[in-house]
């Protein structure tokens, strides 16, 4: 991390409203941190239905080792996948869950 990051809830709200799209410079910077976390432990989406449904999994960075499934939740909407991963990374980077009013 190249600069102090603060858990600015406004950025979480901005992301939730628009996971994919034009983002403010501050959210872009936060997403660069989230998206460049080390491969080991990094979250991804595993397609479980080709009509499109996904579960959240986590890489381990080791060839040959199976993935870890993070939860039993099945997502039918890609934006929901992005938001779920964002929340997990928020906790990973800032050490605390997003507050209920954001979630």
């Amino acid at each position, binding site marked *: 991390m190249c600069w102090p990051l603060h858990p600015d809830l406004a950025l979480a709200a901005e992301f939730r409203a628009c996971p994919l799209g034009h983002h403010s410079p501050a959210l872009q910077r936060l997403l660069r941190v989230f998206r460049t976390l080390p491969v080991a432990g990094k979250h991804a989406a595993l*397609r479980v239905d*080709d*009509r*499109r449904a996904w579960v959240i999994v986590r*890489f381990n960075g080791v060839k040959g*080792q199976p993935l870890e499934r993070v939860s039993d939740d099945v997502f039918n909407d890609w934006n929901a996948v992005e938001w779920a991963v964002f929340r997990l990374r928020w906790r990973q980077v800032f050490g605390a869950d997003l507050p209920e009013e954001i979630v």
Partner: protein
Amino acid sequence: MRQLASYADRISAKPGDRVGFKVSCDPGVAAYRADLVRLWCLDDHRDGPGLQTEAVVAAFAGDYPGRSQPVRLGSAMEVRHPGLAGHSWFSLTLSVFPTLHSAAVQVIAATDLWQMRLVDGRLDCVTAVGRLALEDPLPLNRWTEVALTLDSEGLMLRAGGQQASALFVPDGLSEDDVLFLADAPEGGAGFFGKLARPRLWSGAECLATWDFSSRMGSITVPDRGPQAMHGRLINMPLRAVTGPDWDGSAQDWRVRPEHYDAIHFHADDLADCGWQDDFAWEVPPSLPSGLYAARLRIEGSDLTEYIPVWLRPARPEARAVFLASSATYMAYANYRVMNRSNLYEMYLGQVPELVPDDLYLNLHPELGDSLYTTHADGSGMAISSRHRPILNMRPNAALSAFADDGWILAFLRAQQIGCDVLTDEDLDREGVAALDGYDLVLTGNHPEYVSTRMWDALVAHLDRGGRLIYLGGNGFYWRVAFHTEMPGVIELRRAEDGSRPWDMEPGAYYHAFTGEYGGMWRRVGRPPQRLLGVGFSASGFDLSRPYDRLPAADDPRAAFLFEGVPETVIGAAGIAGGGAAGQEIDRHDEALGSPPHALIVARATGHTEEMMVTKEDMPAANYMIGAPVNPLCRADMVFFETGAGGAVFSTGSIAWAASLPVAAFDGPTARITANAIRRFLDPTPFVLPGAGGARKVAQK
């Protein structure tokens, strides 16, 4: 999770051909059922028509026993010759350039009686009667002269300034007639690094001297010694790489081949699984041209495996032909999402999506990787083969040029447009003759990898009045070469520039297979804009955008494209990112060769910051990268006439194909595509406008 893997010995076939299908099953799979299907849409996405298959009668249909077939991973050179046997005393000398130190054994040379190896970088020799080792590791990425000598006084090992000897006397060179370089004869102990100048001696007499500086495009390595004990390369190590004497005075191995007398071996090279046929298809004369597949199913499993084969007609049945981007399918073969660089998500601009086959690939490194990765020693993977299971050349693969070409096949079916098929490999082998009888060539959604013979064939097609519709993005970007002895193997040198995951090492920018200078077509002097009117400009995988109709669309020359298309916003929906212009997009650019009379009939802009200009358009690093600030991040839809009565229409976007299913294949992108195809099949010649008139139109 899949329980079997498979491939065919052909990627395309004609009536009368035999296609062999090779299957390896996980333990516990007692049997599987095979049949033949024809395929169109290759994706079950809920917003499309769903996977489209049609059962086709084939004699091979039936149940087959499951069996496991092994993979020998790693390249090597094998010498089998009677002249190897019967020498009690010998010396082997060669130059060694290790590129990876590992605890795993790496064999440099071996017979059935001894192995000269690297373990943690230290050279040793093991025989049935003992082991001899040097103390210091061989330096990484440096050449070291190595010699192994066996004579009446014992065994001696020498490397650079190090030397060790032992009094024990092994049995000699070989009981059998086989010598291996870069692996053990039984495999599984491959070497990472370059070898040069292997020579075999009996006292002062040279028994063999293998010449790595000649026949670069061959899998045979000539022995200049008296017995001509030629070597045979296994799994296609990289030839035409710099050798011990390379000093930068030559960059082309053909100019100073003596500077390129080395071969780079990798323990993770794979050119041919070499599996046996499990069943075969004798292609009958009656089937229409199209994409077919052997479909494999296991009772009690939800897995369905497809082994695709592009079926060409004996003679053209349609006047249009779809050029399946088989070179690109091979370049991306077994592209691995898992355990990639932590920057992968930055390229995507969204969370990576895996499909179950990615999990299977993670468990099966022996199936090899794509041209988008590096070997375990960090060198770029420059050779890809289809003689192995390719898990993303299958329906429902994610971010797959193959699966996305199904949108085009399904569109042609929905619009009832007759169209034959052929592959890049056919076009490379046969040249423009492969296009005889066709008025129109349609490309796939991402024909990124192109050989010179393919390119020349398309130019010849246009020169004789042919028409070309480029339905893709980032097409004709990298030059590749097909192996001349082994069909289905391509080579890529990622030289100089371009959006690329690795760089070719200095001095090795020329293909071994053909001797051609490698890298981007733009750097070779053939920007795609010259052929297509557009060329790669930006990439971003989050959201796609629609095109806006431009004034040039009102030009009477382009009127045919917009018949029945009143929309001024084109492609505002689509399965890839929600629009028709996305993922990788191309621009018109006269400075790069777009014909001056080309009409830019529509343009897509307004992408997010994740759509970034390609690096060859960045003179130096700067912040003007993303679409909001860089006007080069756009997709241009272009039409132009050729001088021979033909014409070219280019959409300039990967996502275009995935927009075709919108409104049951009757949205504006589908109507424009259909309009282009129907006019391009009309034999009425296109007339090249005067340059002045064209400029006047463009200035509107």
